[in-house]
């Protein structure tokens, strides 16, 4: 904005101005930027390999990268404690997805509702603020007593750990709707539903996505904790069992996979975000 020019500008000239500014920005970004994360990763693995090979620590404390890869291969083919890696991964991802999607489906409407009604806000907010600081680990015994050690208790745990984040982001997204945009809709005679559909909902989406990204991290924390305490399958269970048997290589494989899957989920959300809210941060 705030463009100025000497000659009579057509809209095309203005457009070219903006495009040129963006092009400049693109061009100043160095091409090797994409390589940086890989270089960091390679460096870290080399340092790790060096430390493992130096023999400063017993092999059982710090397995070499090669050892971890070999353990990973074994896990993938014949499995560990009778369960293959794929089964563990699917078990964990399934639980996360179920709990997380449920939290979105329930949390987003609650957040919207709280943002539009003072009474609903007064009813739910204290509960939310009370529950939020309680660490998920504290729920686990109750979840097991109430729902057993099956899938349900884990999914419900994920649900409870992530829903406050989703609710709060949806609520603050709605609250952050620009007053003038609401007024524009209202002065054109928009119904309540139309105001919601065309102005409030799109305004709230960026914050909801941010909330989802935070929530997915929290979901992994809860899940692994739950699986460590009571589960036969899942990456958390795998790590736990391997730890008890001092199979450090397997523990490493578990940790690496949790990180990779978490990262992938983040990338997926980013991709959806780009599709759904390409205007984010630009208006």
């Amino acid at each position, binding site marked *: 904005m*705030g463009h100025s020019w000497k000659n009579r500008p057509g809209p095309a000239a*203005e457009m070219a101005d903006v495009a040129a500014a963006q092009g400049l920005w693109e061009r100043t970004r160095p091409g090797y930027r994409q390589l940086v994360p890989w270089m960091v990763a390679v460096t870290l693995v080399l340092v790790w390999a060096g430390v493992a090979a130096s023999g400063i620590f017993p092999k059982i404390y710090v397995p070499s990268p090669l050892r971890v890869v070999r353990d990973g291969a074994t896990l993938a083919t014949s499995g560990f404690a009778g369960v293959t890696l794929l089964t563990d991964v699917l078990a964990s991802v399934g639980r996360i997805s179920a709990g997380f999607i449920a939290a979105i489906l329930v949390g987003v409407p609650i957040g919207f509702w709280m943002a539009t009604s003072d009474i609903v806000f007064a009813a739910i907010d204290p509960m939310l603020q009370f529950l939020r600081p309680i660490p998920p680990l504290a729920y686990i015994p109750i979840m097991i007593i109430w729902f057993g050690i099956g899938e349900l208790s884990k999914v419900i745990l994920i649900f409870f750990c992530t829903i406050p984040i989703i609710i709060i982001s949806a609520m603050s997204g709605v609250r952050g709707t620009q007053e003038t945009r609401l007024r524009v809709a209202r*002065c054109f005679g928009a119904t309540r539903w139309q105001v919601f559909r065309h102005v409030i909902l799109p305004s709230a989406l960026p914050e909801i996505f941010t909330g989802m990204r935070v929530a997915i991290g929290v979901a992994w924390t809860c899940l692994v904790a739950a699986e460590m305490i009571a589960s036969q399958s899942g990456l958390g269970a795998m790590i736990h069992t391997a730890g008890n048997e001092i199979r450090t290589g397997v523990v490493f494989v578990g940790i690496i996979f949790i990180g990779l899957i978490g990262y992938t989920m983040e990338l997926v959300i980013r991709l959806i975000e780009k599709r759904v809210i390409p205007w984010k941060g630009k208006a």
Partner: protein
Amino acid sequence: MVSLQQVRKTYPAPVRGQDPLLAVDTIDLTLADGQFCSLVGPSGCGKTTILNLVGGFEQPSAGRIAASGRSVIGPGPDRAVVFQEAALLPWMTVEANLAFALTLRGGRPAANTERIAQMMEVMGLTGFERHYPYHLSGGMQQRVAIGRALLTNPEVLLMDEPFGALDAQTRSDLQRFLLELWSRLNPTVLFVTHDVEEAILLADRVVVMSPRPGRIVDDIAVNLPRPRTWDAVLNREFGELRRQVLDALRPSDSRARRLS
């Protein structure tokens, strides 16, 4: 027609225990159909408040407001508003933004496509239909906002410092452009600005307000010939009008000048 009778607006005290804040006081103002009226006054005198009242976004604490022959009880499609920021919806294309009011009134039947295309052209936006607002410069965004407001042929157009954030060149482009549209569609315009020259150049009439609580201190008819071009500013008559408006804006200054 727009009319305000004995309109007052008080806001609750910003700090508990203080007196409520009287923003505008006993405003009497009637705009004839198709009249272009500028409203000038020092910052914080209640110009936006008056616009919000006529727009129906806020209720007067006392007095009556009517527009298009009806009492104003809320926002309505007979009164379109343009704000200082374009307030476009970033998730819609330029064309969808322009057609927003029509979309709200039930889809976009083929009958409207031509009207929308025509408005795009009038606005100098042809070729930008599929672009998004953040691709446009500030001036173009504001043009979309004006087009959006005018596409439904509102009887009343309310504008709150619509060019205040633009650079001088863009501003004068848009002024000319607004006058063109106004002469074509002839809505009643209430145009808030703090730029005295702009107020005179555009309007049939300049209403001047006092500092808070805002009252109308002068109501100056502008009889410069139309169509107006920006060199009207160089006119002797224009200078006379400007002095009159400035006098009304700063009565203490002019008194001091007369005394010295």
